[in-house]
């Protein structure tokens, strides 16, 4: 068990290293592929009026002439030790962990990320609670009453849920529930949970529902398929042969086994969502990581985009690690081998 944990931790660490190098490489290469040179990159940070000499000096000082590995190493070093950025006329300090430094706003990226994270976290946790509850219960009921009206209706609705994009369901939701019925907030505002939990929930309710609708649909289908498979297993028949009541057969024996693969998918989905629910945050103007990424892309602010992408990658890797460790708890066969 302990070797298993250590192995998973090591694997996660290596993965994190590879992912960060790959992400950094993309941000290093892509501007160069579309014709950017160290000078044009530096131009953005010194203003249009600067002479070519100043530009190349700045590009040099910011390290844009250095090879990829040197730049990457400097970036990683910044995370642990912080970094200094020399503009020629004064130095900017980016304290550790320095996840990048926006040369446009002259602000470190990390505090921004910390600022935005609670919004995305609130959105993800609330939506996940809803979709796990509704998705799994719908899937179980559908599987148990396979072919019934309830099953067909649930699968029909879930087909809509899977296929309709958030920017459609979100806008319809706003139109009906906010502007029409006045039941929910109309978006654009976020109140921290610690300040006013009621207001927090009121502002997030519609985004939760809209986001959860899409995921519930997917989870209902997955749960239904998984349940149908496990209900045909020999051990479910054994449970029934022992004289267990149907509810115990279905939940303790059927659902228990069907949930295990769902755990993997949930870990990935949740980790991905923590990196920013881009569409949902955009539709409801929620100041989370997703919206931060979109704004940074619109402003061509590469260090910000890089920082938020790294953050998202980190969440996916960590979520995967947590799933792997949970697997050992859930499935005893993993624990031993």
């Amino acid at each position: 068990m302990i070797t298993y944990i250590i192995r998973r931790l090591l694997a996660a660490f290596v993965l994190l290293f590879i992912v960060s190098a790959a992400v950094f490489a993309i941000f290093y290469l892509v501007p160069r592929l579309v014709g950017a040179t160290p000078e044009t990159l530096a131009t953005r940070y010194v203003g249009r009026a600067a002479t070519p000499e100043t530009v190349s000096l700045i590009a040099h000082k910011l390290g844009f002439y250095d090879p990829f590995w040197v730049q990457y190493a400097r970036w990683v070093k910044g995370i642990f030790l912080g970094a200094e950025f020399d503009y020629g006329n004064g130095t900017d300090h980016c304290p550790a962990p320095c996840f990048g430094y926006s040369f446009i706003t002259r602000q470190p990226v990390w505090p921004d990320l910390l600022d935005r994270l609670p919004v995305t976290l609130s959105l993800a946790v609330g939506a996940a609670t809803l979709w796990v509850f509704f998705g799994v219960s719908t899937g179980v009921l559908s599987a148990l009453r396979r072919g019934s009206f309830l099953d067909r209706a649930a699968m029909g609705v879930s087909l809509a849920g899977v296929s309709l994009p958030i920017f459609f369901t979100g806008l319809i939701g706003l139109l009906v529930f906010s502007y029409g019925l006045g039941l929910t907030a109309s978006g654009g505002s976020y109140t921290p949970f610690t300040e006013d939990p009621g207001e927090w929930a009121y502002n997030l309710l519609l985004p939760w529902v809209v986001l959860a609708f899409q995921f519930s649909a997917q989870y209902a289908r997955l749960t239904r398929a998984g349940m149908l498979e496990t209900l045909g297993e020999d051990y479910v028949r054994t449970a029934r042969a022992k004289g267990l009541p149907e509810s115990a057969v279905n939940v303790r024996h059927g659902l228990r086994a069907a949930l295990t693969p769902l755990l993997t998918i949930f870990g990935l989905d949740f980790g991905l969502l923590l990196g920013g629910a881009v569409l949902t945050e955009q539709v409801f103007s929620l100041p989370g990581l997703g919206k931060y990424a979109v704004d940074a892309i619109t402003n061509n602010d590469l260090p910000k985009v890089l920082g938020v992408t790294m953050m998202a990658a980190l969440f996916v890797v960590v979520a995967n690690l947590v799933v792997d460790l949970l697997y050992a708890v859930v499935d005893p066969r993993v624990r031993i081998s």
Partner: protein
Amino acid sequence: MTGEPFLEVKDLKISFPTDDGLVKSVDGLSFRLERGKTLGIVGESGSGKSVTSLGILGLHNKRNADVSGEIWLDGEELVSAGPDTVRALRGNKMAMIFQDPLSAMHPFYTVGHQIIEAYRVHHKVSKKVARKHAVDMLGRVGIPQPDRRVDDYPHQFSGGMRQRAMIAMALVNDPQLLIADEPTTALDVTVQAQILDLMHKLQEEFNSALIVITHDLGVVAELADDVLVMYGGRCIEYASARTIFERPEHPYTWGLLGSMPRIDRPNLDRLVPIPGLPPSLINLPSGCAFHPRCAYEPRTGGLGKSLSPELSPAAEPGHLVRCHMPTSERQRIWREDVKPKLEAQ
């Protein structure tokens, strides 16, 4: 209960409606069984053996299976009884041992947990008491250090140990009717003998009625008092085990005996397979279901192709055979033709 058998199955029919047609898995099966006795049900895959056993336990889903006929267990009729009545008996008065203990035990729960669960459904006792019972039961089926193995998961057991644990789980509530569906098929040959011995011993101890479902006549020879041979969802021969091995009268039973490996005979490699394939249960052959594979079909004068024979008494009392040929002719064929060939094998 004078004269009333412990278990009596009357005209049991189990069919499954499918898109391709009605699958008649069991078609008019009747038999009876007393406490302390063992019935072997023999047949090829798809002959309806397992469907019958699941039917007795009421394990068919009412939504996709049609069950009719009567099943009397100790004076209680089960086919018409409510699901809760049958559920209360299941795992309690009647229990089942399944074929492959690796897939038949839940991989996520310890062996002890699964036995405790089986005990506590039918007994309102604390977990502690049930656990003591489970450990005790594991010891009785011959698992060493049961107080430690009780907390192991099924995948930590060997195949034979798993089957023992499965038997412990089935026996934990002292069932009076025990159904074993291919109990040794998934096991090594050396372990098979141990498990058969164990089942025999436990049956004597509990004085329970035992139904052994198998395609292995060796298992039948070991355990059964009576044998029911199934073909295409029907009983085609029913007799005491002794009669089945010494004076069988149905050509299909002869075929089964011919395809059984015998260690006490030379030329082990010369098994005689039964030609052809088991029949489709949707479209059974016209007439006798076995006639397309039967070497003696020409002797029935075309009757085999057109008319399904009745299950009728043979020479010995209690011996039933479903065949158009007269008893005397069947006996003659066995004596002069089949038996010498089997012995020469």
